[in-house]
């Protein structure tokens, strides 16, 4: 299988549009985690978040020809994801559910031990209650496995500020774990 990871975004998009649509898989691979991170910061329901990510790429695939500046592919996909998240909350609002009404960890393995599952649920809920910035730093670091300088550049912060944010986020999670599971 050819390694398309070296292609830059404009070239990737151009090839997708002119011939091999299956190259879109590389687009998905490249941006699935950033998009997922963004969605996960907004939608606590894990199943819904994963659906939204999938939907983002489906919409992206269907509308790829409408992308004016292929160099901004990532921003464009993020925009689609944001719109889908907004739609999701609009629908929820229609039935009167507040944001973060159901914090579910549906993607976790039901067969893992009860204790482990409880801990994960607790941690997930604790992350959901963190401020937007802390959540962003955590998700970028752990999910997207981004380095501090990259996180700093993306969030418009200094590297030191990101480190401080990370430390405080970890501290908040540690205290949440300690409070609810003192025997940990």
């Amino acid at each position, binding site marked *: 299988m050819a390694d398309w990871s070296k292609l830059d975004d404009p070239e990737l998009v151009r090839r997708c549009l002119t011939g091999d*649509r*299956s190259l*879109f*898989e*590389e687009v*998905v*691979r490249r941006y*699935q*985690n950033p998009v*997922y991170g963004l969605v*996960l910061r907004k939608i606590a329901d*894990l*199943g819904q978040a*994963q*659906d939204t*990510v*999938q939907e983002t*790429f*489906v919409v992206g*695939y*269907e509308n790829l020809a409408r992308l004016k500046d292929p160099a901004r592919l990532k921003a464009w996909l993020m925009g689609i994801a944001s719109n889908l998240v907004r*739609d999701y909350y609009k*629908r*929820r*609002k*229609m*039935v*009167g559910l507040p944001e973060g009404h*159901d914090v*579910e*960890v*549906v*993607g*976790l*393995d*039901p*067969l893992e031990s009860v204790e482990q599952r409880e*801990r*994960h649920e607790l*941690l*997930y809920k604790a*992350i959901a209650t963190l401020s937007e910035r802390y959540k962003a730093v*955590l*998700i970028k670091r*752990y*999910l997207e496995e981004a380095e501090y300088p990259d996180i700093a550049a993306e969030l418009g912060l200094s590297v*030191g500020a990101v*480190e*401080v944010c*990370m*430390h*405080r986020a*970890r*501290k908040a*999670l*540690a*205290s949440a*774990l*300690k409070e609810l599971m003192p025997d*940990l």
Partner: protein
Amino acid sequence: MSREHIDILMNRAIDGKATLVEREELARAMLADPTLHAEFDELKVAHSSTALLFERLALPDDFSRLVMRRVQPDHVPTDADLTAVIDSSDLPAAEGDAPQQASRPRRSQVLRRRANIATILSSVGALSAAAALLMAIGMLTGILRSSIAPQLNRDGAPVAGKPGVPAADEGHRTPSSPSSQGKSELPGASNGTPGGSDSPQPKPILPPEDRPAPPKSEEDEDDRERPSAPVDVEKPAVPRESVPGPESAPKGPVQPEPVKPGVENPRDNSKPEAPDTPTDQPKGTAVDGGNPPSGESPNSEGGTRVDKPREALVWGRLLCISSGNLKLTGEDGKLVPLEDGAELRQGARVVTNVNGLSILSLSSGGFVAVGKGTILVLTARGVLLEDGALAVEFDGGKSGATLNVAFEGGELMLSRGTVVVERKVRRKVSVTQSLGISVIRAGENPLVSLEGGCEIDVESGKAPATPRLKSVILPDWCGTARTQIALARVEGLLLAHKLSKTNDSRLIRVLERLTRLSLSAEVLHGFMKHVLEPNGLGAVALIGMLSGVEEALISNKEMTPEDAIKLANFATCEAKNLEDWEKRFETQCNLWLRRELKGELPKDAKKISEEERRKAENKVEGKDAAGAAKTEDEARKKEAVPGPQGK
């Protein structure tokens, strides 16, 4: 050393990025302050737990492939392929116009589809009646046949099996008799080839004889395993849909044809012409006559009966294609596009494209909305979902009938309500029950019953998880599909109102929003019918009413969509116009809310609510307090007058 600096050092140490100097610095600080050490340990635990959690939260490894399967569900034919398919087919000219139709304005498409839907719905009644009549004839014939069978059996072979369906008959199928080939009156009956090469009629839209797997990429191969779910393709769930003889062959573009669905039906594959037992044969397709010597044709000898090949039973129809397309997998693996109103047969395998949304109506009742990138097989008891997503709407009523959705690793039996079944990841299916009741069977595990407002994941080879209760909002495509169904059901009434283009789209939009909620199709249908009937308030008022319902749902969070529609329906009873309705509906909502706040209704709740209603209605009608009091006094007087029983 500042506290912030220590925090950063701890952070770096946890991330493994601290230099030797920094580690030593941190060690010194922790030695000096034991609380720092405890804090560092807690942070390490939090870090490892978080890392583990995010590992679990990560998208599946094959996520990109899943996305590609959604956007490119199968071999996507090029324009040249499509042209070749269209050119090579004998489909009527209208079917070849699909590209032109696609370029038509949406409005005309909608109108055309609605017209088709209206035609289909009107023909459904006639077809059902005809089917019932044919079934009765079939039963009578069966009784007669059983009584005359010994006479027809010239060589006196004992008749086994069920009356009227002798086991020996299985060896008498015309296709095996060379002499009968030229004499058979049924096209394609001679060699069992679908359609028959010499068939003068248009190529029928029928399930393939041998359904070869469509072209797949290597990596998709294991993802497209045949589900092990039980699928009954052959046994008809609805006998009235059976096709007993040539006279009952459905009219239209589809003609009878031998079909070997080949899906979860090894008997069909191995012995396509001779089922193991007489009971395997669908009703009405039994071969009559005795056991003539080989080489003799029954119709040449007896002259009374013509053997016919086995036919796939009618499954239902393609009600409409809302977007994209729906294609039937042909015997050669090629995809043949279907048109609105096409008849579908059991065993057919249909595929929607990346933006496809089609609505199928079952002959036995119920609707299946096929989402984008979906592959499904039409079975006798429902459908088999191979990939993608579908929404099913069904009401089995008191008969206990179910509509089954089979999938890899299990089967869902829907008694009534709305269910969305979606294959999310490999070997895992998500089932969302918006309304009604259903049961899930997954292998040998105990049955799991579902009720409206819950969701469950079923993974092949594993016990189903416990259903999660949640407020179900169906996806957009379900709303669109349910809207199409709702509109189709009141098509006749709606056409009489001649809505403007703007109002038409307003109606569609508001319905699309409402039908995503847990709202029974029957309740909605009842309401729409009530409003659209000749003495109702009309289609324009209906749009306002539905918007009012929507607003009421937003402002009253405790109110369920069904409650809101029921209140709206109640308010419609005496409303003179939309404004009047709005006032009455508001009153109804307020009364409802008051009752909700009070909790359980008191013993004389009925009386109280009646009085409240009367007061509220007086207010709405502009009667003053005195007038209202007068009315109440009159009512009391009436109650006080002793009737014959009071004496």
